[in-house]
């Protein structure tokens, strides 16, 4: 894990192993619900015994949009693509997409990458996760 991801806070959401980055899910040890981002209380059964579980790197694109108006706290280029990706665990992940527009299809196979998204107004690099065609 690079130092820059620590600065960014991204290490709360992303971890790396020998095969590359993966998203950190939460799994309730009582009811087995899996969710993202990981939180300390299970959203299904309020159980507080939550373990970390690595989420699949590949999923299917459930829906997407191209954003033209900057939302608050985003200082990168516009327009940009975001989407919801359905992972095999049944978890939906909201993420940036890096796909050519003409290739965008709902249900297309996508995979996770972690990379620089933009530099903020102070020149700090914002590292984020994206899905690209698998």
């Amino acid at each position: 894990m690079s130092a820059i991801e620590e600065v960014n806070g991204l290490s709360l959401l992303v971890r790396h192993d020998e095969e590359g980055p993966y998203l950190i899910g939460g799994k309730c040890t009582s009811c087995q619900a899996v969710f993202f981002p990981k939180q300390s209380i299970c959203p299904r059964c309020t159980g507080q015994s939550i373990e970390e579980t690595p989420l699949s790197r590949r999923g299917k694109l459930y829906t997407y949009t191209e954003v033209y108006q900057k939302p608050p706290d985003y200082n990168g280029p516009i327009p940009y693509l975001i989407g919801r990706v359905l992972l095999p665990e049944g978890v939906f992940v909201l993420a940036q997409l890096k796909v050519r527009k003409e290739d965008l299809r709902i249900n297309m196979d996508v995979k996770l990458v972690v990379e620089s998204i933009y530099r903020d107004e102070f020149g700090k690099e914002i590292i984020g996760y994206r899905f690209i065609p698998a």
Partner: protein
Amino acid sequence: MRNVVILGAAMKRFGRYQESIIDLGAECSLNALKDAGVEWKDINAAYCSHVLMGVTVGQFILMPLGPTGIPIFNVDNGCAGGTTAMILARQAIGAGIYDIVLIIGVQKMGKGVLGPEILDLPETDRIQRNMGLLSLPSKYAMIARRHMEEYGTTVEQLAQVSVKNHKHGALNPYSHHQREFTLEEVLGSRMISDPLTLYQCAPTGDGVAALVLCAEDIAQKYSSKPKVKMAGAALCSQVYVPDDPTSIHAFTIKASREAYEMAGCGPKDLDVIELHDCFSIAEICHYENLGLCAKGEGGRLIDEGATEIGGRIPVNTSGGLLSRGDPTGATGVGQVVEIVWQLRGEARKRQVPDAKVGLTHNLTGLVCSVQVLMR
């Protein structure tokens, strides 16, 4: 439980105002009292809906009417705050705690996309915000894209929702936009989050709206106008539905079924509806969620003109959020004001003939309220 009726209603045109929210709110409150035939000293309690408008803003608004010592509750439940306040007041009147209550919804807003509603966000939210993942237009745009994929809904059907609501709003002197837009104008306006263009996003702005609620058994001594009964009312927060990430459906379905059951009616009994069309796609989805049509058939309802004034079930006769505006804390109260006017036969050019049963649907990110109102 005693029955509760709406005795008085007032609002100011939603838009942009120089005057302070204190002055606007006090004036609107007095107008609602006059409409109800009630004096300020008759009011037992007041509920003020607002979003982040300041500490005890309800007290600041109502003190100029006279410090009578009544309880004033400030209610912040996002864009659903206005109807949340009504539901609280209905419970209190129903339980016999108060007889007559003032509801006021107030808001002044900046321009642009709404900011974070909770200021001290967890770190994981901040990271997602920095990546540009969390905004309302993009959330609804993704709902739209999925609806198009699953049910064949078209960009023209989405835009037609805005055309229809602006057509209604052009007849409403209380509407923010108060002008018609052609399909070409809606589709050709600036892209906000594909496929949603600017005129498919409700305008932010300033607004005040007020209501007087009263126990039915004493209402007649104040006003001879038709009384609008709060026949059914339900407030739901988000429901855990792992396979519904878009999350505007489940709590709308739940709240509407609860409200229908309480009122002893169903979607077929409704004459007029104000629903939460913060974005064009929301209206299509909520036709389905409220049970006006089957899942996936919302676009067809628009094509058939069923939800226009003169259609089978007119929706958003006020112009809806898309035309009337969405000044968050005042939005829900404004919806109810329109239904009150419709059920009293006071809606002028946009009157639905002989409307007897109305519905309001009011939501915010994690809250949904549905009310059935009857003459």
